[in-house]
Structures are given as structure tokens and as C-alpha cells.
């Protein structure tokens, strides 16, 4: 074992690859957030002690009076600070990698984590193009959200704890994407789940929030089951679990479409479905909005929930070898996208809309990676990280403001219900603009980021449907149609959100309205940066066809298929397999027409939806939540999210609980323990009966004596 201190010195690892490029302190990127966690955690524990004393005394501890307590000032610097450093270090490495023309991943291993028999799992990290993209997103967006949180959370008594969790989350997320083997990834995988749990239940005194955290954790664990089983199966096949070993041999070991590889990938899919909130395990994500809004932005939109997509892309070779699993991935993705979009149509809670929107967009990503467009999946992951983080942060700013207003007008209305908002445009112009940019991006309108990424996914689905040897071609055609429809729905519900929130009449009431305000600087600057990224972020991967058409300004857009080329070393094996087995992809959509044509159609259609929706809804007078009528018909079903939660309660949770009770009360207590006690009691009962023979009368005794003699004589005599 190498001592932990060497982590920073990048000593040559146990199985380090000999690459031309030397990364700069890669371990430190992981370690910095952990350090932040340690410091903030210590501060949090100290603060919690004080606040606990206060609670016992029947009041809240005032961390803010007479100047902030050190526990509440230090995290402001430590929390975002470590992220900034990590981000900068990532950038340095990114730049280094850009110049290195790397084809093999760079592996640094620090100590052997689990060594037994022929199993050897090293505590190793892997730097390659994919993990680098992810690291950039995680540390970059993460940093912005940390900064935003400073403004958003700074009056919360749990401020240091919040940053401790957030840092810990970044740590685990980095472990997830940087790990060089599946078990290491699994550490991050479960670690982020833990942080998600802690952060959703951040305000744990609220039972609903605490329950939401618990739900997230348990549902995620169902997925984790798949992850573990996939690891086991891979180990069974390869006797090793690191990426390098598996991916290198995968093509030669597995039969294309064979049962083993299909099983492995389906297990991975289960994991991904759990983490990325796909049908049927999507139920936890909307509830996860119980956490602080920046958390929703960071974890439940930008990073953690996309881990499933990362997993599929990371295992792209495996998925490419399993066409059935890929088709299932795509199918789940598109169904989830459509399903979530329908639910989002009728939600009134701003964060719920965004939550379902996230689920829907994750569905798109799954569709992308399912049809073999791994780059497109990662591309959408990235652009989504920008605009969805922005949307959540914007929503956070809005909620912050509305809360303030409602507080001052003494209304106990729901600060997240869009029916209680309206007309915020006037009060929060920056937020308004930023969010409109993000809405256009998510709606897939040219030239915003979302257009390029989503368009590529849809296009690739169409192309897959027409591929030479495509299995399930008809299925892919259906996917394509559904994906297009979903894109339109997206445009609709996002516009609805914007209109209800920012346009029309303000519904907080006159007293409240006075207190509506624009977000402070720490909050709107991240918004601005993310808005910029939402606008231009899509330009890094414009397909050649688009780039050379009108949509690319006839080649004026910079960068072209940069991301595609960047990720090529990671995905090339998968593409090789695909090409070998699927043949050439189609150059026209199922209904005919090329990429450019469909790009134009979709952007125009989406724009039309936006405009029409804005127009129609803008005129309607929205009643405030308390006065609104109960929805009816389909609307009611959608509002109640297709009753999926109810279904699970009725058919999964309740039966399990009932069974558990039966097992305890009847099987355990009555039957098993009953049998144990019965043995004891029966023994004593027999003893008691036996003692009754002891009548005290000599005749009886003599009789039994004689009986004994008779039996013995009979036994021995015969």
C-alpha cells in the first residue's frame, strides 16, 4: 500500500498505463472536494452542537446576529473554493489532454483496494476524453451552483452542513466518472446516491422531505442491484472488473447479441434506469425536488441523474454488442421522455415541471445512447446540464423571491405553485431573460444548445431505423415519431411554465409584490454564465451536414463535430462493432428527407408551438392555487402523474409492508418462535403430567415398579 499522502504525488501506479501525457495532479481533483467536505463537515458538526443547545432551550440559535459565526462564514470560501480549484485543475488537465492526442486512457492507481484470490481491484482513476468531459461539467457547473448556493442558502442555519454535503457529492461524482473500474465507479454511484439522500432530506425536520430522500435512496438501490449483478457477471467472464481489461477483450469474448452480454447490459440498464429516473423507476426524481433548489439543479438535473447515461456510454462497447439491450435502452428512453413530458403538461409546481422535464430529457439521452449515438447522448447530457441547471437556478431565484413576498403578505400559499406567481418579468428581468434562453434551448430551437443535441438524437434514431441490418427497424421508426412528438410537448410545457411565471398579472397581491426582487449577485452571475452556455454550448458538436447548411450558417459555426472527434477514442470500439453488424446507417429519415430538412421542420414546429402557446396562455386569466378548481378528465390523470406512485403503493409498497408484518407477527412470532417455545413448554407440560403420577401413595409406586418388572421380563424373555 502506498500511504495516502502519495495520492498527490501521482507515483506510478500498480497498473499505470504508460502514456505520453502526464496528467497534472489528477488525484487532487478528487481530493479537493473531499477536503472541502472535511472542513465543512467539521464546521457543520460544531454549528449543529450550538444549534442543538439552542433547540433544547426552546429557540433557534442565531448564527447571524452580531456578525456571522465563523461556522457560517468559512463555508462560503471553502465550499465554492475547493470547487474552483478543482475546476481549474480540471481545465489544466483538459488543456493538456487536448494537446496530447491521447488514444489510450491514462490510468493512475494508488493502492490496491480489494485484493483476494484472482480478484484485484485497484483504487485507480482513469483519465480519458469521456471522463474529462464529465469532469468539466461536474466541476464547472458544480462550481457555478456552489456560487449560486452561497446566495441562496446563506441564511439557512444548516449552511455549513449544506456545503459539506455538496462537496461530498462532488467528490463522489468525480469518483464515479474518474474511477478506472466498475467497482470504483460503484463507490461513486452509491456515494452520490447517499448525498442525494442527504440533500433531499436536508431539511429533515419536515417529514415529507425526509421521506423523499429515503424514497430516492431505496429506489436507487433497486438500480444498484443491477449494477452489482453486472459487475459480478463481468467478473465471471473476465476475472477482472477494470475498464481496460474488459473493453479490450469484450469484442473477442462476447458473441454479438449473445445471452451473456445481453444480460450484463440489461443489468447495467437497470442500474442506469434507477439512477437516471427512467421508467419504471422514475418516481423518486420528482419527489427529490424537496431538496434545496440548487441541489435540484446540480444533482437532480445536471450531474448525478445523468450518471446512467455516462454508464451506458462508458460501457458503449458492451451495449453495442447487445442490440436487444440497446433497443430496450432506447425504448425506455423514448417512453420515459414522452411519459414525463405528458405529466409535465399539467403540473402546477414550478419545480415539478422542471423535474418531469428533466426525466423527459434524460429519456432523450437514453434514446440517444440506445440508438448508438453515444456522442449525441453525452452531448445532450452536457447541453442539458447547462440549460436545466439554469432553469432550476432560475426557478430557485423565483421561489426565493416569491417566498419573500408571500412571507411579507402573510400568506401561507405554496411558493412553488406557478398559479401564485405571474408577472415576475417586471421584478426579475435578468432571471426572466436567462430562463427564456434556457426554455428556447430545451425546446430545441435553433441555434440554442438544445437544438443541436436533441436534433442529433432524433436524427440518429431515424437513421437507425433505416440502417442496413438494423434489428427492430420498425421499432426505431416508432421511437423516432415519439421523439419528435415529445420535442413538441417540451416546447409546450416549457412555454407554459414561462408564461405562468413571468407573464400576465402578478398574483402575489399588492403587499407581496412590493417585496419581489431580483436575485442577488451571487445568484444571477451563475445564471448569466449558464445562459451563455445554453446559447452557445451546442456549437461544439454541429454535424457536418447541418454545419454546411443554412442551420450552420453554411459553415460559419465554429468547431463542427468537435465533441464527436474528442470522444472518438472512447466510442470507437462501439462504433466499430455497430458498423460491423448494422452496416451503414440511413441518410434519410423514415419519412424521407435529410437531416437539414428535419432540423428545419423541428425547429420551426417548436417555435410555432412556443409562440402559439405563449399567445393562447398569455390571454388566459390564471386563478391562484387556492381558488383553482380541481382538474378533471385527462388533465386530472396527468396532474396525478398517471397515478404511478399510487400504483406502486398499492401493488409494491403495501404488499411488501403487509408481507413483512405477516412474516413478523405470524411466521416469526407465532410459527418459528412458537415452535421453539412449544418445545420448551411441551417438555414442561410432559414433565408436569409425569409428576402427576407421583401420587404419594406407596401402592401406586409399587404398581409402577411391578409394571417395570413386567416390561423388562417381557423384553428380556422374548
Amino acid at each position, binding site marked *: 500500500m502506498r500511504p495516502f499522502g502519495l495520492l498527490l504525488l501521482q507515483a506510478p501506479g500498480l497498473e499505470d498505463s504508460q502514456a505520453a501525457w502526464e496528467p497534472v495532479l489528477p488525484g487532487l481533483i478528487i481530493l479537493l472536494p473531499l477536503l472541502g467536505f472535511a472542513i465543512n463537515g467539521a464546521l457543520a458538526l460544531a454549528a449543529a452542537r450550538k444549534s442543538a443547545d439552542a433547540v433544547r432551550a426552546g429557540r433557534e440559535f442565531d448564527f447571524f446576529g452580531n456578525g456571522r459565526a465563523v461556522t457560517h462564514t468559512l463555508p462560503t470560501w471553502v465550499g465554492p473554493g475547493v470547487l474552483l480549484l478543482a475546476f481549474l485543475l480540471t481545465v489544466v488537465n483538459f488543456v493538456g489532454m487536448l494537446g496530447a492526442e491521447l488514444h489510450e486512457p491514462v490510468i493512475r492507481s494508488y493502492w490496491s483496494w480489494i485484493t483476494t484470490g484472482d480478484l484485484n481491484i485497484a483504487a485507480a482513476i482513469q483519465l480519458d476524453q469521456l471522463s474529462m468531459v464529465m469532469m468539466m461539467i461536474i466541476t464547472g457547473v458544480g462550481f457555478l451552483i456552489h456560487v449560486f448556493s452561497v446566495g441562496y442558502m446563506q441564511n439557512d442555519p444548516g449552511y455549513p452542513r449544506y456545503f459539506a454535503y455538496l462537496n461530498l457529492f462532488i467528490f463522489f461524482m468525480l469518483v464515479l466518472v474518474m474511477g478506472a473500474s466498475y467497482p470504483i465507479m460503484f463507490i461513486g454511484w452509491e456515494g452520490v446516491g447517499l448525498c442525494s439522500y442527504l440533500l433531499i432530506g436536508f431539511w429533515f425536520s419536515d417529514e415529507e422531505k425526509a421521506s423523499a430522500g429515503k424514497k430516492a435512496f431505496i429506489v436507487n438501490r433497486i438500480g444498484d442491484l443491477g449494477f452489482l449483478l453486472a459487475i459480478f457477471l463481468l467478473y465471471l467472464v473476465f476475472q477482472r472488473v477494470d475498464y481496460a481489461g474488459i473493453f479490450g477483450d469484450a469484442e473477442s469474448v462476447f458473441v454479438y447479441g449473445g445471452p451473456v452480454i445481453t444480460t450484463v447490459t440489461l443489468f447495467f440498464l437497470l442500474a442506469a434506469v434507477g439512477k437516471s429516473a427512467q421508467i419504471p423507476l422514475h418516481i423518486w426524481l420528482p419527489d427529490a425536488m424537496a431538496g434545496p433548489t440548487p441541489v435540484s439543479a446540480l444533482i437532480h438535473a445536471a450531474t448525478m441523474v445523468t450518471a446512467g447515461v455516462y454508464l451506458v456510454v462508458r460501457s458503449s462497447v458492451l451495449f453495442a454488442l447487445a442490440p436487444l439491450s440497446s433497443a430496450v435502452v432506447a425504448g425506455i428512453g423514448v417512453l420515459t421522455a414522452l411519459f414525463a413530458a405528458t405529466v409535465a403538461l399539467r403540473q402546477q409546481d414550478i419545480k415539478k415541471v422542471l423535474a418531469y422535464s428533466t426525466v423527459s430529457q434524460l429519456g432523450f439521452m437514453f434514446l440517444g445512447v440506445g440508438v448508438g449515438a453515444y456522442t449525441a447522448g453525452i452531448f445532450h447530457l452536457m447541453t442539458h446540464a447547462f440549460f436545466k441547471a439554469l432553469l432550476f437556478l432560475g426557478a430557485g431565484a423565483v421561489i426565493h423571491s416569491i417566498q419573500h413576498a408571500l412571507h411579507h403578505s402573510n400568506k401561507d400559499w405554496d411558493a412553488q405553485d406557478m398559479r401564485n406567481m405571474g408577472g415576475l418579468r417586471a421584478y426579475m428581468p435578468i432571471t426572466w431573460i436567462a430562463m427564456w434562453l434556457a426554455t428556447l434551448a430545451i425546446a430545441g430551437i435553433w441555434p440554442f444548445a438544445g437544438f443541436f443535441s436533441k436534433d442529433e438524437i432524433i436524427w440518429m434514431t431515424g437513421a437507425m431505423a433505416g440502417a442496413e441490418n438494423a434489428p427492430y427497424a420498425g421499432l426505431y421508426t416508432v421511437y423516432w415519431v415519439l421523439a419528435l412528438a415529445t420535442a413538441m410537448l417540451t416546447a409546450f410545457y416549457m412555454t407554459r411554465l414561462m408564461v405562468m411565471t413571468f407573464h400576465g398579472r402578478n398574483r402575489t397581491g399588492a403587499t407581496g409584490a412590493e417585496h419581489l426582487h431580483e436575485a442577488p449577485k451571487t445568484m444571477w452571475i451563475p445564471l448569466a454564465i449558464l445562459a451563455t452556455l445554453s446559447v452557445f454550448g451546442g456549437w461544439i458538436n454541429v454535424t457536418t451536414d447541418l454545419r454546411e447548411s443554412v442551420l450552420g450558417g453554411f459553415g460559419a459555426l465554429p468547431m463542427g463535430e468537435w465533441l464527436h472527434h474528442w470522444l472518438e477514442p472512447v466510442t470507437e470500439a462501439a462504433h466499430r462493432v455497430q458498423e460491423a453488424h448494422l452496416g451503414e446507417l440511413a441518410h434519410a429519415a423514415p419519412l424521407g428527407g435529410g437531416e437539414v430538412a428535419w432540423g428545419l421542420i423541428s425547429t420551426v414546429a417548436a417555435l410555432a408551438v412556443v409562440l402559439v402557446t405563449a399567445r393562447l396562455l398569455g390571454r388566459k386569466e390564471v386563478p391562484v392555487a387556492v381558488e383553482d378548481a380541481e382538474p378533471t378528465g385527462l388533465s386530472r390523470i396527468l396532474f396525478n402523474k398517471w397515478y404511478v406512485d399510487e400504483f406502486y403503493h398499492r401493488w409494491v409498497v403495501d404488499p411488501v409492508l403487509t408481507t413483512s408484518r405477516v412474516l413478523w407477527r405470524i411466521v416469526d412470532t407465532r410459527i418459528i418462535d412458537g415452535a421453539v417455545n412449544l418445545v420448551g413448554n411441551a417438555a414442561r407440560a410432559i414433565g408436569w403430567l409425569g409428576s402427576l403420577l407421583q401420587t404419594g401413595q406407596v401402592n401406586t409406586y409399587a*404398581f409402577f415398579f411391578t409394571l417395570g418388572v413386567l416390561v423388562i421380563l417381557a423384553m428380556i424373555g422374548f
Partner: protein
Amino acid sequence: MPEILFFIFAAVAVGGAVGVVVSRSPVASLLFMVATLASTAGIFVLLEAHFLAAIQILVYAGAIMVLFLFVIMLLNLGHDYQRDIRGNVAMIIGFAVTGGIGGLLARQLGGGTAGLETNLGAGDAIDAALREYGAVGAIARPLFTDYVVAFELTGLLLLVAIVGAIALAKKAS
């Protein structure tokens, strides 16, 4: 002739035994017992155990039974004509069990000993001893030679019995 005598004695002995068990009065039981002992003594004679027959009458029937009689009188049980035999159920069960034992014994001793007599030498063993030492001497010799330890132990046994009887029966101080 000895066979006839044997069966007469046997009949009296069994009858006496039954009488002991079924008599109402303890005194009657006692008398039946004496009858049994006496006829057994008769059988002893037939079996060439003359000395034993004598002390059977003297010690057993004479001394021990009188001791019983004393006790019965002492405790004033002589006029106690209450039937102290257990009820029918106990009687039947008891009869079944003892009958079973009796049956097994009869089967084993009666049927099973066929030929034993000739095997063992048809009474030669005792005849020789009697011829040589006489009825008393035949027993007395081994008693003071081979069985001297047993004989001494009998002394100790009697001492124990005396001490015990006195310790129990004497009036509490």
C-alpha cells in the same frame, strides 16, 4: 408319596398366600401367613433342607410373625375389619400386571427348566453333604468357613437393625 405331599403343601401354601392378600382382618392375614410358612417348611423338608425347615418354623413363623402380631395389637389394628384392599380398577390392573409376571415366570421356570434337573444331577449335590455332615452340619460348616465374612456381616446387620429399631421406636425424650 413325596409328590402327593408336595402338592398338598403347595395347595396350602398358595391358599395361605391368597388368604394373606384378601383377608379383611390383619390378624387373619397373619394367620394365613403362618399357614403358608408352615407348609413351605414342609416343602423344605421334601427338598432335604431339614435345618431350614426347622428354623422356618422357629424363627419365621414363631418369632417374626409374633413380632408382627405384637405390632398389630400394639397399634390396635386387631379389630379393624375395614376392607383395605384397593378398588376394582386397581385390583384388575394389579392382577393383570402381576398375572403377566406370573405367566412369564411360569413359562420360563416351568417350561423352560425342562431337563434342568437331570443336568444338575438330580439332587446328588445335597445328598452327599447331608450324608457326610448331617442336617445341621451341612449348613454350619460353610457358614463358618467359606461364608464367615457373610456371617460376621449378618451380625453387623442385626446390630444395625437393633440400633435402628430402638432409635425409632423409643419414646421421644
